[in-house]
């Protein structure tokens, strides 16, 4: 197991380096001039030049990259051109919001998807199957920005049960925090559940056709025991692959959800960073996201090892 881990880590290091290079170069593809973004279109050209120099934008790109990378390792991820705040400080402040949204949304998507996937797989081509599938597909088909606004109108304006956007920290007021997170988590979880559900369903169907399942039934084991103890574990490997990919997708979706609901998270930070051409912010967020995705993939690899002993020993 240890060798396996070390090998995986060594594999991911060059990937991280490649990520940093891509992250850094991508921002230069964004159209527009950051100095103009900062000072406005009507600014004095001399002032614009001054700002460009101050921001170091006049240096050659490899030099800028080296300086940035050096900063990253020493904990200096730069300052936001927009808010003047240190990027690491901003990310540290915002990460709890996105983590809460992401983790709860992820958990919700699993809670919705896996039972429905198992349920529909055990009753293929029945009304139950169709209903379950429709429910999950609805999550994918309905655009999240529309669903979000509709839910806000229902729960905030008409019913008055939940606030319309905004965020309160968990440690400041747990009840209000739950209220502000309820709708965003629901929207995120619901839309993410469809993909997981489909994958669960199809890999369960494969597994349920196997001989050992028939044996289990023959032994007299109950439906739920067969499904959970025998089928699910085996069906879970392809699902796990999906989950690893889901993390990356969900990072993207949080950007939209946080923007609509007004949550001060990392996703929102990225959106404003791009629209305002706040290059250090974009670089910082991309680097963070890249790291998270790589870690998620690493976790997936390790979990494979736990789930399937055959993988561990190769």
């Amino acid at each position, binding site marked *: 197991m240890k060798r396996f881990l070390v090998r995986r880590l060594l594999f991911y290091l060059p990937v991280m380096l490649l990520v940093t290079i891509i992250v850094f170069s991508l921002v230069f593809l964004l159209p527009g001039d950051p100095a*103009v973004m900062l000072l406005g279109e009507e600014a004095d050209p001399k002032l614009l030049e001054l700002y460009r120099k101050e921001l170091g934008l006049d240096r050659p790109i490899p030099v800028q990259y080296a300086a940035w990378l050096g900063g990253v390792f020493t904990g200096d991820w730069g300052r936001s051109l927009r808010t003047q*705040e240190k990027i690491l400080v901003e990310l540290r402040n915002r990460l709890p919001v996105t983590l809460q949204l992401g983790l709860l949304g992820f958990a919700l998507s699993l809670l919705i998807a896996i039972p429905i996937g198992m349920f529909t797989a055990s009753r293929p081509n029945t009304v139950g199957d169709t209903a379950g599938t429709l429910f999950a597909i609805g999550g994918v088909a309905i655009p999240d920005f529309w669903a979000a*606004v509709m839910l806000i109108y229902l729960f905030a*304006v008409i019913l008055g049960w939940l606030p319309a956007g905004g965020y309160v920290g968990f440690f400041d007021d747990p009840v209000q925090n739950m209220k502000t997170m309820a709708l965003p988590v629901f929207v995120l979880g619901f839309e993410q559940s469809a993909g997981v559900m489909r994958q669960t369903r199809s890999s369960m169907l494969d597994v349920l056709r196997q001989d050992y399942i028939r044996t289990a039934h023959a032994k007299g084991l109950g439906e739920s025991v067969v499904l959970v103890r025998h089928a699910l574990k085996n069906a879970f490997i392809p699902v796990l692959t999906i989950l690893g990919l889901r993390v990356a997708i969900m990072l993207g979706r949080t950007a939209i959800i946080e923007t609509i609901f*007004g*949550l001060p998270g990392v996703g929102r930070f990225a959106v404003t960073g791009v629209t305002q051409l706040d290059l250090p912010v974009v670089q910082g967020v991309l680097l963070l996201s890249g790291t998270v995705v790589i870690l998620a993939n690493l976790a997936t690899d390790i979990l494979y090892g736990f789930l399937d002993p055959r993988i561990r020993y190769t």
Partner: protein
Amino acid sequence: MKLWLFRRTLPLSLLAASALGVAGACGPAEQPTPTATPARIPTPTAVVAPTPTSAPVVAVATPTPTRTPTPTPVGVQIKRGGTLRFRIEGDVRNMDSLLSTAGGEQAVMTILYENPVRSTRDLGLEPWLAKSWEVSTDGKALTLRLQTGVKFHDGTPFNAAALKFHFDRALDPKVGSIQAPLLQQVEAAEVVDDSTLRLRLKNPDATVLGVLADRGGMISSPTAVRATAKEEYTRRPVGSGIFKIKDRVSDSHITYERFPSYWQQGLPYLDQVTARIISDPSVATAAFRSGGIENFVVPQATDLPVLEKTQGVNLSGLPWPGFWYFAVNPTVKPFGDPRVRKAISMAIDRNALMQVAYGGRATPLYGPIPPAFGWAYDPAFKKYDYNLAEAKRLLAEAGYPNGFTVSPVVWFGGAERKSVIEAIAAMLGQVGIKLDLLLVQSAVASKGYLVDWQYPAYYSGVGPRPELHVIMAEHFHPDSPKTVGGPAIVPAGLREALDKAAQTYDSKERGALYRKAQDIIVEDMMRIFLYSQTEYEATWAYVKGYTSHPSALRNFAQTWLDR
């Protein structure tokens, strides 16, 4: 000698009232008090004794404050305390008034800063931290007499030295404030005594007071500026306003709390004010309707019917201080011919356009002076109005009886702008002018048209600008880099009219000069002016003692919550 100014200058409307002919008096400017005395216009009385300088000083009567928010009628019990929440669209970058560049930043800065002069509801001026002012006869010295007893949030006293520090900083090239070009006529600020500051001007310039009513005049505590690093100060500045910053969460909210040592005893009534950052317009409206915020500027015209019908909502119209236009590049054929430009103006039915874009909630415009500037706007000015037959005749006379194609017509923006530009394309199609619309990013569009003169046609707007001079000069003065086609295409007499207006303190005279400039601009059809829309500010009825301002410069001094 550059007398045109990029941005902000503010007309001195009420200055006119008594002023120039009369060696007039300065009736003492009324202090805004918490009680309900309505403002009175002072009648000129005695002659002010000249101050001990070599140049004789002419006292210019200072206008009486009229922008005190609707005071609570006497006898009503004011409830103190509570938090008022309003909406802003996005987080702000710079709250250091001299470094602020983005439009949305004024809304959050006006809560904690104060200015020597303030902008009134019709975009005129009234005294504030400068109780009164005088101009020397040669126009090159402006003396400000300051309010006493004012403190900044950190306890530093506000005085002439603090104001001088502000001017020095604004003009310092190392600070790099964008207010510097607007104050370029200010040579130096001299402390006369603790509550008197004299500005020495290189040339007479009436627009300086206007700059002081906006960002350029929001005064920071010198102690705080000196003691704090630039990046930190801009996040938590220190002013002398009714509220001071309590805390900020990026992309979430900015909270202000009551400043107990505010120079007007007893104010404010509120304990806290919160600026909530809500980007999505639909969510903003939902937040208002569900009681999450007390006040916001209605972002979408489609929300207005619902809000009008909702019980307990006060809607206040904000005429937009700016104009929307369709521009054709005079350096590109066939737009060099003024007949073609006039034909375009006459092919557009602005009233129909209003229905398409704003459901009628806008004013058609035929010149650059928007209705928000009550003291200069002429509602009867309607030159080159809709006349399809005449448009066709002019085009034929210019040699284009069958019209022509314009490609590309550059524009940017959302759904409302899209419907306007498409309606214009349909209208111009009727005289044979075909528009090939091209949607691009705003920075690309404005640079491409206004700076590089690259595109043949462009649809955009100018504003909001609380200063009329900026609106008039930015795109039309021969020295402005945004005058497309350069000084060569600017018609005769325009430079003189604009320059003279910038030196005139009397708002009646000034208004007349701007109307003259408007006439010259429209006769040459330098732009085809379209409309100026009316925005609306919504407030719940339990919010008392609050009045709207066209630039959404909120003043919560006398506001209280009746619940």
